[in-house]
Each structure stands twice: as structure tokens, then as C-alpha cells.
């Protein structure tokens, strides 16, 4: 199997100024991130707010300017601004379906837009036909076409967003927290829908979420981000059973499980404090300030993402020592 997407050393930095005359400082939203996604697989990107996971997705799609590194798509490096052809092949679904659809347009207009921009339909009839067949795939009927976004619930709107992004028949889809704003009973519906569409259209997916339980179920491989860096990448099942990086260990230990007996017996690692600011981040390991295993060495040097066991990468000097340790 080959990689559809390879991210090498991606950085996205923003200049920020406290006051208009002050010296600009650098906010390192994403700092030297590398990973790759195999064709027809789901790569999950997990992290807390401010970890840079959304920025990674946007930088790949071309919605944020990359300040360093290269993204290879289908073997070719992406240009600074993605061409129309590339934009057709890569699509994104956002967290808030209400905010991503123009409230003044009808669903028909909203769905016709991608077809017109990319000149994918040659007649009105063909346009209608393509819209209807895709609507059916996301579980909606043609009665929605004349209505406006405000007439729908969040779950239905998310179906419309999914329909819209798939109309250009993309190969690569970024789902940025696409189910986070939905109710629990609707979340399962959308997860199932995304899974079946992924199979049907042979999609490669970058699924960004703070909900590790969802990623554990959906993703083939998962990357954990902290303060702009990927600290661990592993197959989903391996990461949930044997996380190696101290941050992943702590994160997984506090994710609530729907099992009261397990919850009462298992040990939780409660991290002290909060994630440091990505403005002028620490020199060494990004997790240094909260890590229970930190040593002087970690403060000075940033550990690289290294393969600890087959297919399992961690950015920690002590990853090898931590194998098999459950105490965190």
C-alpha cells in the first residue's frame, strides 16, 4: 500500500504582537510535524484545544499558509496555493454545520455550488441527477432541496455538509471535529454514515477530534498532538492498549469509560496545570512542564519522533523505559 498523503516537517507559525509598536513574537501553532496517511485508511489526529490539530488539517487543505515543510499528495509536493484540481480532490467537513452553510441560500443552491465551481455537470439535468444521487447516499431525499439551512437540525445539516463535500468526488477528506457539536444519539448515525461512505468512495480520511473514544473506533492510525508537536503515532488498537508517551498515558487514563466498576478501580493520572502558551514555547520537550518523568535533559533538548516498536512512534527520551509500565 502506498501513502496518499505525506506531511514532512510541517510548520505553521503566526506572528503576534501584544501592542502595535511591540516586537512581533512567534506563535508556533504547528511545529515540525511529520506523518503520512496510507490510501483508504483513516488517520486520527487527537489533542486538546490549542494543540494545533485543526491547523494541521487546514494547512494541508490550503486554508492556512504553511510556513515550513512540505506536504506530498499522491507523490507530488503541494504548491504554495492549491490549484483548483487539487481543491477538487481534497475536501473538508467542519465542526459546525450551521456556520458552514450560507443561511440565505437553498440547499439546492448550496449543493450545486461545488459542481459549478469545478464544472462537473454539463446540464441542469445532470446537475440535479448528481445532487439527488449523493443526497440519497447521505440519507436525505429531494424534498430538502427547496428548503433553507435553518429548517434543519444539526445532524441533518451535517449530512448536507457531507453530501456537499463528496459531490466533487474527492480522494482525501479532512473531518475537523465533524461530530463534536452533535447530540449523542445523532453522533452514532453520522459515524456510521462516514464509515459507509469511506468504504463506498475509497476515501482517505484525516479525522481530527478531541474525543479519543471516537478515534479509537474509527481510525486505523492515531497521532497525538501536544503544543504543536506530534508526540506519538501508533495503530489505533496499540495506542489505546499501550500508550508510550507520558502525555498519551495521562490523556487516555482520564478519558471516561462507560463502565462504573472499571472507573472505580483504574488509576487516573491527573496532570497538574495546563498546556503552556504556544507563543515562545519551551526549548526542550513541549510536555516538560507537566511530565512526571521529566529530567534535566528533557528541558534542553526536544526529543524527535522515533520508532519504538514496529509502526509505533513516540517523541520521548524515556519511551523505551516506559514500555509495559502501567503506573504512568
Amino acid at each position, binding site marked *: 500500500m502506498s501513502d496518499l498523503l505525506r506531511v514532512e516537517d510541517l510548520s505553521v507559525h503566526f506572528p503576534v504582537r501584544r501592542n502595535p509598536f511591540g516586537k512581533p513574537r512567534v506563535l508556533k501553532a504547528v511545529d515540525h510535524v511529520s506523518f503520512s496517511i496510507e490510501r483508504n485508511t483513516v488517520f486520527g489526529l487527537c489533542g*486538546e*484545544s490549542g494543540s494545533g490539530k485543526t491547523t494541521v488539517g487546514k494547512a494541508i487543505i490550503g486554508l492556512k499558509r504553511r510556513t515550513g515543510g512540505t506536504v506530498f499528495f499522491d507523490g507530488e509536493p503541494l504548491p504554495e496555493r492549491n490549484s483548483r484540481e487539487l481543491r477538487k480532490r481534497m475536501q473538508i467537513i467542519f465542526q459546525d454545520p450551521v456556520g458552514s452553510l450560507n443561511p440565505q441560500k437553498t440547499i439546492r443552491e448550496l449543493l450545486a455550488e461545488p459542481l459549478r465551481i469545478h464544472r462537473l455537470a454539463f446540464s441542469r439535468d445532470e446537475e440535479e441527477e448528481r445532487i439527488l444521487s449523493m443526497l440519497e447516499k447521505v440519507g436525505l431525499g429531494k424534498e430538502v432541496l427547496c428548503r433553507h439551512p435553518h429548517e434543519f*437540525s444539526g*445532524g*441533518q445539516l451535517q449530512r448536507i455538509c457531507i453530501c456537499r463535500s463528496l459531490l466533487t468526488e474527492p480522494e482525501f477528506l479532512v473531518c475537523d471535529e465533524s461530530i463534536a457539536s452533535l*447530540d*449523542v*444519539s*445523532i*453522533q*452514532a*448515525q453520522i*459515524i*456510521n454514515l462516514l*464509515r*459507509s461512505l469511506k468504504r463506498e468512495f475509497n476515501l482517505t480520511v484525516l479525522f481530527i477530534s*478531541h474525543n*479519543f*473514544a*471516537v478515534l*479509537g*473506533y*474509527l481510525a486505523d492510525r492515531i497521532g497525538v498532538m501536544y503544543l504543536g508537536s506530534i508526540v506519538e503515532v501508533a495503530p*489505533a*488498537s496499540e495506542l*489505546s*492498549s499501550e500508550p508510550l508517551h507520558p502525555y498519551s498515558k*495521562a*490523556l487516555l487514563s*482520564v*478519558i*471516561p*469509560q*462507560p*463502565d*462504573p*466498576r*472499571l*472507573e*472505580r478501580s483504574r488509576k*487516573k493520572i*491527573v*496532570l497538574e496545570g*495546563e498546556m503552556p502558551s504556544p507563543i515562545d514555547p519551551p526549548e526542550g520537550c513541549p510536555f516538560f512542564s507537566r511530565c512526571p518523568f521529566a529530567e534535566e535533559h528533557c528541558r534542553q533538548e526536544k526529543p524527535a519522533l522515533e520508532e519504538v516498536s514496529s509502526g509505533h512512534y513516540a517523541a520521548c527520551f524515556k519511551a523505551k523505559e516506559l514500555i509495559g509500565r502501567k503506573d504512568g
Partner: protein
Amino acid sequence: MNILDVSKLSVGFPSRKGMIHAVNDVSFQLFDNEILGIIGESGSGKSVTVKAIMRLHRIPPTVVKAEHMIFEGKELLTLPEPEMTALRGNRISMIFQNPMSAFNPIMRLGDQIGEVLISHKARMGRKEREEAVVQAFEEVGITNPHVRMRQYPYEFSGGMLQRAMIASALIARPSVLLADEPTTGLDVTIQEQILQLIRSLRDRNGMSVVFITHDLSLLAGFADRIIIMYAGCIVEQGLVDEIFYSPLHPYTKGLLLSIPSASSDREADLFQIKGQPPDPHERAAGCPFYERCDARRKECSLFRPAEIAVTETHKVSCFAAGSGKEAADV
């Protein structure tokens, strides 16, 4: 002993399309020293219920009806407003989802929290009050309280501000804390800090907590008892273990089955509850879950199922669950 006893509470909001029945005939009790979780989707009436207890709805236009709503021996429904004001923030406190909008952005946090003491502990002097605020900050784990109390809300992070809100809610030592999704906007590592804080404050000071959330997993390790709400009704209530290990209502079962996890079968689809929650304008005569239920029968569309007590603590409102056998394999 119960500290709060709510019986047949209904809340309605008039709208252009007719009355919105947000809460229908909800009855429950809150016991001493327990953490009671209320779970439901948006629009299920969980926040509206709690706000009705605090009497935060404006009446009219809102219509609040109940048989009784007794807190520490007082009937809240008919309590004169000055006495209600004396209870709020003093005996019964509330914290909200978004701490940023709960605080006044142009007032120092210490002063805002001190206001609770000004209104409830009139005889306290300025010095004493400041000391109390410092102590409250220390109690909720805000380091450097002397500096922090002179700062403004924007200088706090979300997690820290939530701690400050808890400090403000608990400074007068209430016997009941109503928490309306206090961890929803927070990251999981911060969420765990807040949950542990609420638990330890409960253990140390003794109080009852009503914790509203839409995350059933969160309650597994946190709550003592759980109430499940759907479309303005309580469909099931019971001890944590009863809800998680022997759920009876089809909605509860569906919720539990639809939680994804790394250990679920990746080849199989997730269980999904079909359809969508009902329109709050049209409250059907029958069971609110009828449209989406896999175990529905003829009578379900005609009559609303009454609450059946399966054990002393476990109650369910479902015709199918009452007869026992069929409900087990839904």
C-alpha cells in the same frame, strides 16, 4: 434523607407556534451528600429543570407548575422572592457551562466572589471577606490567591475560571450545588481536575450535587445516581451500576450501545438510535420515545407509560420494561 423533593414539575414556554413543553411531570429527589447526574440531549429539559429549582425563569411568560418542590423543608414554589434571594448562592448554588459569561468582565474576580458574602453574610468586614476569598481560592486549587483575586476574568484560562466559579458558588457553604455542564467546554485533562475537585469538596464539606451533562461515560466514575431525560420527561433513574449494567429503557440501552470505544468491534457498525428527537411544539399523548423505539407496542402511542419501580432505587417509564422479559433483548 432527601434535601430536595421535586414532584410533577412542568415548565412551558409560550411561543408563536404554541406552548413549548420543555419539561413534563418530572419527579425526583436529591439525597444528602449524593452526586446526582442528569443526562439528556439538547432540548431534553435538563437545564430547564434545574433553572426551575433556582426559580430563574421569568414567570410569566414562562409557566412553571408542580405539585411541590421542597428544599430543606421550604416550599420553593410559593416562597416569597426576598426569601428565595436569601437562599440562592447561600443554601443552593449553581455553576454554568461558560464561566467567561458568568463573570462580569470588568470587575476583579476577588470582588465579584466577595459579593456573595456581602449579600449573604452582612456582618462580615472587608478584611474578613478578603480572607474568605483567599481561602476559597486555595480550596479550589488556584495558586497564588492573593495575586489572582486582584485579576480580571480575561487573565484566567477556562479551567481556572471554572475553578473560580466553583469557589464563588461554594463560598457561602451551600447544601446543594447545581452544576449545568460545567466541564463541557473543557479539555479532558482539565475536566478530570474539575471532577476530582467537586468530588473532594463534596467529601470534605458535605453537600449534594446535581450534575447535568450529555456525556454518559463521564458519570460512570463520578455520579452516585443517574436520571435519564428525554424530550422533557424522566425515562429512567437509578444507581450508577443499575443504569450501566441493567438498563431497562430502550433509550438508555440505545445510548449505552452507541458509545464508541477502541474496544468496540471495528468491523461492525455502531448501534444507532434511528430518527431524531421530537419537535418540542408537538408533545404526543403517548411515550415521548415512541417514534424511535424498537420495542414499541400499540399502547405506547396512546398512553404515556407511568414510572415503575423495579427496585427501591431503579425506576423506569416504559410499558415494555415493566413486563420484564421482552425488554431484556431490545
